[in-house]
């Protein structure tokens, strides 16, 4: 197949206008088809990352989303500077690139007429890292869900804690979990959707303690990074290590739901969870 690889390389630039190359199997798919297929590869079922807007469009009834706490933005509690410059600059660039204030968007909306509170992380914003603004928004949305007795759904997508905020980012793990614990206590449903990728401090906080944890096919979910683990244990890891399928097998996921079925899944599921909280419109 050497000839194919070769031609693939030389043509890739012009092709990229029309085609999308699957990050997983490298198949070429018409961009139109790629988008129509919800960024799921028709060849290998790879579920590519969605930005927050695409996720909201996918899951909520058209026009029902109302954002809350949109003004909450990044903070620079430790005036962090690394080799590439300051965190302040980096955050500014992320905001400019994404049009977001933080790595998560929160608000309320309806899923087939059932009111819910959602938090959607966006990997484009500094790798979906958990900073103080992220944690604060996730906590405030949980408190909103608690007050209004509405199910809370978090779509996580994150490389972990945002180390540029130092210890304050670590504290967001405890902070968000405390908010979830209050929902648990009050019987307000909390559903975690772990999308590709959900790792590090986010996997070790709110993302893995849903009443039910669901995920999309092939999503990467894990605590430590593959490279770190391989260096630690001095052996190669299995190919399916830390995939959604692996987590399902090991007892940490309730279900893997294909992207196209996600809204329908919630439509089926939510009535079971809605027995305590009153249904509001």
């Amino acid at each position, binding site marked *: 197949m050497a000839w194919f690889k070769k031609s693939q390389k030389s043509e890739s630039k012009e092709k990229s206008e029309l085609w999308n190359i699957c990050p997983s199997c490298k198949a070429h798919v018409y961009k139109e088809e790629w988008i129509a297929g919800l960024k799921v590869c028709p060849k290998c079922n790879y579920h590519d990352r969605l930005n927050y807007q695409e996720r909201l469009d996918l899951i909520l009834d058209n026009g029902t989303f109302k954002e809350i*706490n949109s*003004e*909450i933005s990044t*903070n620079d*509690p*430790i005036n962090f*500077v*690394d*080799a*590439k410059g300051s965190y302040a600059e980096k955050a500014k660039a992320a905001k400019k690139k994404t049009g977001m204030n933080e790595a998560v968007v929160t608000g309320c909306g309806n899923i087939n007429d059932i009111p819910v509170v959602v938090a959607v992380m966006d990997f484009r914003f500094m790798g979906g890292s958990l*900073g*103080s*603004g992220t*944690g*604060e928004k996730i*906590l*405030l949305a949980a408190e909103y869900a608690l007050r209004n007795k509405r199910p809370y759904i978090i779509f996580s997508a994150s490389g972990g*804690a945002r*180390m540029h*905020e*130092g*210890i*304050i*980012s*670590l*504290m*967001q*793990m*405890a*902070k968000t*979990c*405390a*908010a*979830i*614990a*209050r929902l*648990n*206590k009050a019987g307000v449903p909390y559903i975690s959707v772990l999308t590709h990728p959900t790792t*590090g*401090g986010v*996997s*070790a*906080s709110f*993302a*893995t*303690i849903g009443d039910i944890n669901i995920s999309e096919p092939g999503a990467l979910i*894990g*605590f*430590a*990074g593959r490279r770190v*683990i391989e260096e*630690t*244990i001095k*052996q190669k*890891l299995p190919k399916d*290590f*830390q995939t959604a399928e692996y987590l399902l097998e*090991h*007892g*940490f996921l309730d279900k893997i739901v294909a992207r196209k079925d996600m809204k329908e899944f919630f439509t089926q599921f939510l009535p079971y969870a809605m027995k305590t909280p009153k249904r509001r419109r």
Partner: protein
Amino acid sequence: MDLDFEAPLLEVEERINELEKLGKGSDIKFRSEITELKRKAKSISKKIYKNLTPWQTVQVARHKDRPLINNYIKNICSNFIELHGDRCYGDDQGIIGGFATIGNRQVMLIGHQKGNSVEENLKCNFGMANPEGYRKALRLMRLAERYKLPIVSLIDTPGAYPGLEAEERGQAEAIARNLAEMSQIATPIIIVITGEGGSGGAIGIGVGDAIIMLENAVYSVISPEGCASILWRDGAKAPLAAENLKITSDELLKLKVIDEIIPEPAGGAHRERDETMIAVKQTLVKYIDRLKRTSTSKLVNKRYEKFAALGRFGKKKR
């Protein structure tokens, strides 16, 4: 493992040792020189320890002679009864726990165990716990709640173990579960970061009503080495990362992540172990008595607000 920045101090200390050995038979001969050297040592150690860089503090926090949980159990606890097992898979020695009495106060003590010897290091995996360790800790904390015992959690870990089996058995879930449960446990929880507060592995038993830190302990979202290798693409930049990450007790107090610093003797906890442990004991007793006066429902609410406020920089909007 000697600390290079302690070189001038170690030199004097060595000389003192020599003289004391020589002087065994004839005290008077060396007495005045020894006295003078000791004064000098104290002055040097004060100078060194007053100006530790964050990276030097990391070295101190990791020092092999620094008091470990075993030492605290032996020296400031009585009637320690170790309890084993997570009731599900195993007994991890990276986190240990059990009933303990500290200055007549009965508590549930939990904490990371690094081990005092190579053999012990291996047995407890250098304080890098597996999911079983976190689940055992949770079980013991629930038992403490049932028996109305305050919980004391001693933190000293490079981090949760990044192993294949740890992932397989849900390292992430085990830590997350603890974070959620600890926020609701209806009994006082006192956290002391005694050495290394390594990221998720530390906070996994680190949610409480009072967060206390030894002066030369560190607490960080990532190891300086790890941070340097990611953000500087060069692990050798660890000192710079340590500087930037703000991981020392004074910085953390400013950030309100901790409530109090327990000062260490000049020369560090590894040099004055007993003195350090007594200081820890006194602080624990103070907080146990203080927190016991609050009703548990109020306690749990305040604990929630404490963590909710961390990283809240704008005005409240709730």
